[in-house]
C-alpha cells in the first residue's frame, strides 16, 4: 500500500508541469498552494488507466482546499470563499 505522506491541515503546493496524456489535475490549479482537507482514499492512477494499464498500486487521493482569491486574480466573491479539488499524491509537494 502506498503510504499517505500528507495529513489534514498540511500546506501543499501542486506541481506545475504539463506531461502528455490524460491528467486529472486541472491546469488552472497547477502551481497553486492549498491545505489538505482530507484523504479521500486510494485509487488506481488515472494517468496509467488512460494508457490501458492497470494503474496499480492505488495512490492516495486528497481533497485540497484553495482560496478562490488566490486562484483567480479577478475573483470578486467573499475573501473566505474556497475551492476544493481532488488531487493525487504524486502531484503534491
Amino acid at each position, binding site marked *: 500500500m502506498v503510504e499517505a505522506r500528507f495529513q489534514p491541515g498540511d500546506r501543499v503546493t501542486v506541481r506545475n508541469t504539463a506531461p502528455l*496524456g*490524460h491528467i486529472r489535475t*486541472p491546469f*488552472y490549479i497547477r502551481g497553486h498552494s492549498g491545505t489538505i482537507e482530507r484523504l479521500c482514499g486510494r485509487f488506481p492512477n488515472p494517468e496509467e*488507466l*488512460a*494508457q*490501458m494499464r492497470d494503474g496499480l498500486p492505488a495512490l492516495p487521493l486528497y481533497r485540497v482546499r484553495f482560496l478562490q482569491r488566490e486562484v483567480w486574480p479577478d475573483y470578486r466573491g467573499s475573501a473566505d470563499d474556497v475551492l476544493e479539488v481532488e488531487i493525487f499524491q504524486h502531484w503534491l509537494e
Partner: protein
Amino acid sequence: MGGLPAGPVERGEHDEARSYADWERRVDAMAVLMAAHHITVDERRRHIEQLPPEAYDRMSYYERWIVSLTQAMIQRGVITTDELGRKMEEVRKRG
C-alpha cells in the same frame, strides 16, 4: 471550462437537459458496455483531449464520445481502421 472562459452553464440534469436522439442513446450504452470490458473513462478522456481544439468545439458531446470509443477500439485491436472505413462507406451508401 477547465479554467478558461466559456459560455453559460447548462443547469439541467444530464438526462433532462434535452431529449437525446437514438444514436446518442446507443453511444451511451456502448460506453457502458465498454467500461465493463475495462475501457475506462480515463482512456476515453485521453482520446477526447487529443482532439484538435477546433474539432473539439465543432463536435457535439456524443460525437466526441464516438471518437473516443472508436479510437479505443482501434488501439486495442477490436476493429481495424480498414473495417471502420469500409463500414462508413457502406452506411453512407444507404443514404
